[in-house]
C-alpha cells in the first residue's frame, strides 16, 4: 500500500472539518476523492502534505509515518501536489517555474551551486532538457518564455501539474485539476492524467466535477468531512447517499 490514512481528524476550534477519515491508495491506481463544495476535500490534501497540522490520526506513506512532516519533507519523500488556486510562481516565466521546481532530482548541494562546479552545471543542463520535455507533455512549449501570471487559467493549471511532475513524484495529488477548464481542456487533462499513470505515477484526485469518474479505478466520496461511500465509479454513481449529498435528499427516488 502506497498511502494509508487512518482516522484522520482536523478541528478548527470547535468546527470539525475532517472527522475520522480513512483512505488508502495502492501503487498504480487512480483514486478519486469527490464530494460537494466545502466537504473537506482540499483539507484532506493539506493534511496529507503537512500544510495543516493534523489534530489526530496517522498518515503513512510507503510505511513511513508522515503525519508530522513538513510540506517540503513530504515533497522530498515523493508526494507531488498541485494547488486549486495560485498554483505557480507568478513572477517567473513558464520555463523558470518548471526549472525552479527541480529541487529534488537531481539535487545540487549549496557548495556545488555557489561555486558552480561541473556537477552543478551538468545538473542544470539536465534540468533544462527535462523541463522542456515536461512542458511539451502538458502542451505549454509555445508559452515557455511567457510570464506565468499572464497565462490563461487552464494553462496555469497545466503549469501547476508540470511543476508537480518536476519533483518526480511517486504519488501525485491533484487538487481540482478540471475546475474552470473548458471542454477541450478537460479532455486534454483527462488524457494527460491517464498518461501519467501509464508512466508509473499513482494519482489521487480531488474533484467535484463528475467527469473525473471515467478516469478513476476507485472513488471515495466525502461529505461534511466524513467518508460516506467508497467503491467503483459505477457503484458510487448509483449510491443514494452520494446523490443526496450532491443534490439534496428530495432527489433520491
Amino acid at each position, binding site marked *: 500500500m502506497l498511502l494509508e490514512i487512518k482516522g484522520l481528524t482536523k478541528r478548527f476550534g470547535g468546527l470539525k472539518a475532517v472527522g475520522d477519515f480513512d483512505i488508502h491508495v495502492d501503487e498504480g491506481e487512480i483514486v478519486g476523492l469527490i464530494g460537494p463544495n466545502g466537504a473537506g476535500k482540499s483539507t484532506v490534501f493539506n493534511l496529507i502534505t503537512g500544510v495543516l497540522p493534523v489534530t489526530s490520526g496517522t498518515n503513512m506513506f510507503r510505511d513511513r509515518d508522515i503525519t508530522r512532516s513538513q*510540506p517540503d519533507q513530504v515533497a522530498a519523500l515523493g508526494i507531488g501536489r498541485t494547488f486549486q488556486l495560485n*498554483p505557480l510562481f507568478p513572477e517567473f516565466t513558464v*520555463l523558470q517555474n518548471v526549472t*525552479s521546481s527541480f529541487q529534488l532530482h537531481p539535487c545540487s548541494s549549496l557548495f556545488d551551486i555557489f561555486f558552480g562546479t561541473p556537477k552543478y552545471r551538468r545538473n542544470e543542463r539536465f534540468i533544462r532538457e527535462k523541463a522542456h520535455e515536461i512542458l511539451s507533455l502538458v502542451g505549454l512549449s509555445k508559452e515557455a518564455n511567457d510570464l506565468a501570471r499572464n497565462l490563461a487559467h487552464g494553462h496555469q493549471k497545466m503549469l501547476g501539474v508540470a511543476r508537480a511532475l518536476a519533483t518526480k513524484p511517486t504519488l501525485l495529488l491533484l487538487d481540482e485539476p478540471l475546475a474552470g477548464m473548458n471542454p477541450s481542456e478537460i479532455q486534454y487533462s483527462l488524457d494527460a492524467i491517464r498518461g501519467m499513470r501509464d508512466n508509473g505515477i499513482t494519482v489521487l484526485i480531488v474533484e467535484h466535477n463528475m467527469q473525473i469518474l471515467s478516469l478513476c479505478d476507485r472513488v471515495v466520496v466525502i461529505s461534511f468531512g466524513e467518508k460516506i461511500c467508497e467503491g467503483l465509479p459505477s457503484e458510487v454513481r448509483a449510491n443514494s447517499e452520494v446523490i443526496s449529498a450532491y443534490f439534496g435528499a428530495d432527489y433520491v427516488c
Partner: protein
Amino acid sequence: MGVVMIVLALLPLAISGSYYMHVLILAFVYVVVSSGFRTISISGQFNIAQGAFMGVGAYAAAIPAVWLHWSPWVTIPLGAVAATVVGSIIAYPFARLRTVYYAMGTLFLGYVIMNLITAGGKTTGMSTGLGGVQPLFSNRTHYYYLAFGLMVVSMACMYRFEFSRIGVRMKAVAQSHQVAASVGIGERRNRILAVAFGSFFTGLLGAFYCHYQGVASPSSYGLGATLLIIMYVLVGGLNSFWGPSVGVLILLVIPEFYFRDLKGDLPYVTAAILLIIAFTLPDGIVGLVNLVKNRIVKRLGRGGLPQQPEGEVRADAPGD
C-alpha cells in the same frame, strides 16, 4: 562594469588622502550593507534590523580589539561571523513572520539589539561609543583599497548567490511559500540562509567601518543606519542587483562630491528625491534605466529586450 572598476581602482592617484576618499570608503561600506539588505529581501524578508546587524559586527570587532588587543585582521572576520551567528539565531523564530509583521518584528528587534549593546556598561562604552579601536593602517589610501577589495568580493558573492539556483529558491519562497514547499523548497531553511548570508557581509563591513573610524558608536549603526540603507535601496531599485549601489551613488557620493555647500538643506533635497521616486518609479532609478532601454530597443525594431538565458531566473536585467 569593468570601466567602473578600473576607475575606482585608479582613483586614489587623483584624490589621494582627500575628503573625497573618505566619502568613497563610506560609500563602499554602504554599497555592501545595502546590497546585503537587498539579498535578504529577495527571500521576501524586509529586515529593518539590518543596521543593528551592522552594529553587532562592529561591536564584536571593537570589544576584543579594545579590551583584549586582538589584531584587526582577527576582529574584522570575527565581526562578520558574529553578525552571521546572531542573524541566524534570530532568523529561526522570525521565519514564522511574513510581510509587514516581519518588518515590524525586526524593527523592534533592531532596537533591542542596540539597547543591549549600549547597556553593556564600560565594556561597550554605552551611548557615547567605544573609542580607541586600533586602526589598521596609518594611510587612508590603504583603507580605500581594503574597502574596495571587500566590496568587490562581497558583491561578487552576493551576485553569485542571487543568480544561481540558491537565488531561485529564495525568489520562489518569496513568491509563494506554499508552492515552494510543494516542490521541496523549505521556507524556514532558505529564509535563515538568506539572513545568514546577508548579515555576514553586513557584519564584515560594519567591523571594517569601526576600525576605520577608530570608534564603535551606536549612532553609526542601528535604526539610523537602517533608514539610510532603506533609502539607498528604494531610490536605486529594490528589484535590481545594482539598485543599492546606484542609490548610494545618487544619495551619498554625488551630494558629498558636488553639493557640499548645500549641507543644511540636503535632507530636504533627499526627501524630495525619495518622494518623487516613491510616487513615480516603484522600481527606482535602475527600473527607470531599464524602462528607457526597453523603449529604445523597441523603437529600433528589435522587439523588446533580448531573451534572457533560458532556465536562469532573472527578475531584472542586472546590466554591466
